[in-house]
């Protein structure tokens, strides 16, 4: 079948193994629905995401990238928030060089039980990306 036949924006989520991924699991457990073209790759910590992975995702055809950050709950320490923020900032600068809309990369802290917040983010991000297409 031809690519892109399905509706909605294609979103790559970087979740974290101990904090935000359990929240995304719980969204499923609670049958809180969100668009199915949201694809997750779980990493140990949100401050481990390399900017060039994100650029690779855009180059491969993702409409948006969402970092479901550990926030202050990071089991590896409080510096996570600041470091995740820094890598997002760095990526935004690289995106600007490539004329990519900064709004296509989003980051929000998703705690281990923040399932509703995750779903809300996915719905609104998907809608916003769809409008921007």
């Amino acid at each position, binding site marked *: 079948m031809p690519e892109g036949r399905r509706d909605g924006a294609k979103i790559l989520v970087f979740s974290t193994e101990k904090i935000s991924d359990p929240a995304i699991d719980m969204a499923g457990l609670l049958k809180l629905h969100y668009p199915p073209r949201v694809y997750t790759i779980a990493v*140990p910590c949100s401050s481990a995401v*390399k900017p060039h992975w994100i650029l690779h995702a855009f180059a491969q055809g993702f409409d948006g990238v969402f970092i479901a950050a550990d926030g202050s709950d990071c089991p590896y320490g409080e510096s996570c928030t600041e470091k995740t923020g820094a890598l997002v900032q760095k990526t935004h600068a690289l995106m600007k060089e490539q004329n990519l809309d900064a709004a296509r990369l989003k980051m929000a802290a998703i705690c281990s039980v923040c399932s509703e917040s995750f779903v809300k983010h996915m719905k609104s991000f998907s809608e916003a990306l769809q409008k921007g297409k």
Partner: protein
Amino acid sequence: MKRKIGVYICHCGGNISDYVDVEKVRQAAAKEAGVALARTMEFACADSSQKEIAQDIQEGAVDSFVVASCSPKLHLPTFQSVAERAGLNKYQYVHANIREQVSWAHSDDKEGATAKAVQFVRAAIAKVRLAKAIEPIEIQTQRAVLVVGAGVAGMKAATSLAKMGVNVYLIEKEHFVGGRVSQWDVLCITEETGKDLVTRFYIDVVANQNITLFTGAELVECSGSMGNFTVKVRITPRYVKDICEKDRMRRAIEVCPVEVVDEFNFSITKRKAIYHNFPSQYPLVAVVDMKHCTRCGKCEKECEKIDFSQEEKVVELKVGSILVAAGFDPYTPKNGEFGYQVYDNVITLPQFKRLVAISDTELKWKGRPVQTIAYIYCVGSRQLEGENKYCSRYCCLTTICAAIKAGEKFSGLSHFHFTRGIRTYGKYETFFYEASKRGQVFLQSFEDDPPQVTQKDGRTLVRIHDILTSRREVEVDADLVVLVTGMVPRTDGRIGEILKLPRGRDRFYNEIHMKLRPVETVIDGVTIAGACRGPQNVVEAINSSLSAAIKSYSFVRRDTLAIEPIVAEIDPDACTWCEACAKACPFDAIARDASTGKEIARVNTPVCKGCGMCLPVCPANAIQLRTFSDEEVQQMIGVLAHEL
């Protein structure tokens, strides 16, 4: 070498296959490069399925595999051990979560769910194609456990661990052990009092040399990880060195001019600034409450053991596991909730129980004799509108039990229970029968029509539309209204914040899985026991504390612990030692190394936690995290982006 990948797709007995066309997923997987076989399974975690996978490996049909089933949080270790049993390195297996993040999340869109499952399985295949065998890293383990909370759950867990030969540091925030149970009089089923039970546990604790008990002790800092935590504990002094000679402490307490609300009796009485909760509360040494003490010096004249020179201190302990048994708080009704804080004869269940315990010949409240008691159930539990949707489990039984005991202690009492349906489950049902037999009256209403409490001409009236008698209006003129309050998490949640423990929807600490891993938390090496996990009675709290003790023991029982070898690796050719990675590492696991003649960064592998914080800061992209290499992540991204 060409890979022989096995792909096993689970139905999960319909949990997946009701929403995902697993056969379609299987067909898509079979077409992927390197896939030697692709099968669906009714339950991949079943013994027979595990054997089937192991057999494929042992027969050489498969040299790496993907399991697509529930969240890896549940069964990753299961399939890793399948690999190991069959002689395959466990990192040559990759998991795809097609239940929590696919079939359940998209149960409203079967086509979308199936397409997404195909993508997740293809991405896992792409990752396993690159997977290498990695050997685990061994770390030295501290053969000690920190138990937080010396209530019945914490003391039982401490004793159990100590008997297995583990050093236990038992810390209690209060100056006395026993937690909530010490505040209770007769406990149900047996005729023991809370004090009796606490005494027995305390004797076990002090008799065991492996246990060090700290009272007035609070966890203030925690670093490290499973097998090797460093914790800091702040200890507030008692300002009393030892037990005073006969009667001298009693006199020291008598002469204290300061009176404060006694929280042990849930504020229905006052205590002095120097106190013990009741005469045999353990440890037997009294305490000076420095927040309220005026340093008038009167007590010092009565007892030479009082010592104001004692100072607060912080001790550092090294432990391999932390067991949290921090207990609960009783729900505090809102002002005006069933007349609470508005009418002076409306009290809570814990207050009522203390009142019965400390009253001798006659039951009186605020100087007035009590004869008719109205109990209003489910206050702060099973709330339709409010935070506490859960049932607090212990209150129906405790109330009935307290009413029976009050009736035995004081003659002429009448009991009216305004319930939402009695839940004296299991063997406790006999108490409900006993109370009914003794003439106690049980009325019932639904949540949409709760009882009303009003006052008129000095009388307190409790009115209900009783559904057991066709919603007939029943009014009771009560001397005392007891609000049957449930359990809520401790208001002081600092332990959870320090240890980063996640909370569930009920705001109690959350286990990884209710049935599969009920006492473990997502923080490796930290277990939970007792009512900090959620409402439970004494029996249930003890059960969970024994489970948590065994689980904590499993983390410290050996001298070494195999930890995940998911660590950062430096490419020595690309690295130019700019120090950015060392600065980013929160564990000081990266240092400069010039031993080869060139200055590069070196990772101290056992200290590296595999968080990856060093990855994005390297300007030369010279750092790779094992199993999350650029190649692996980018392959997965590529596959996910190109939907079939």
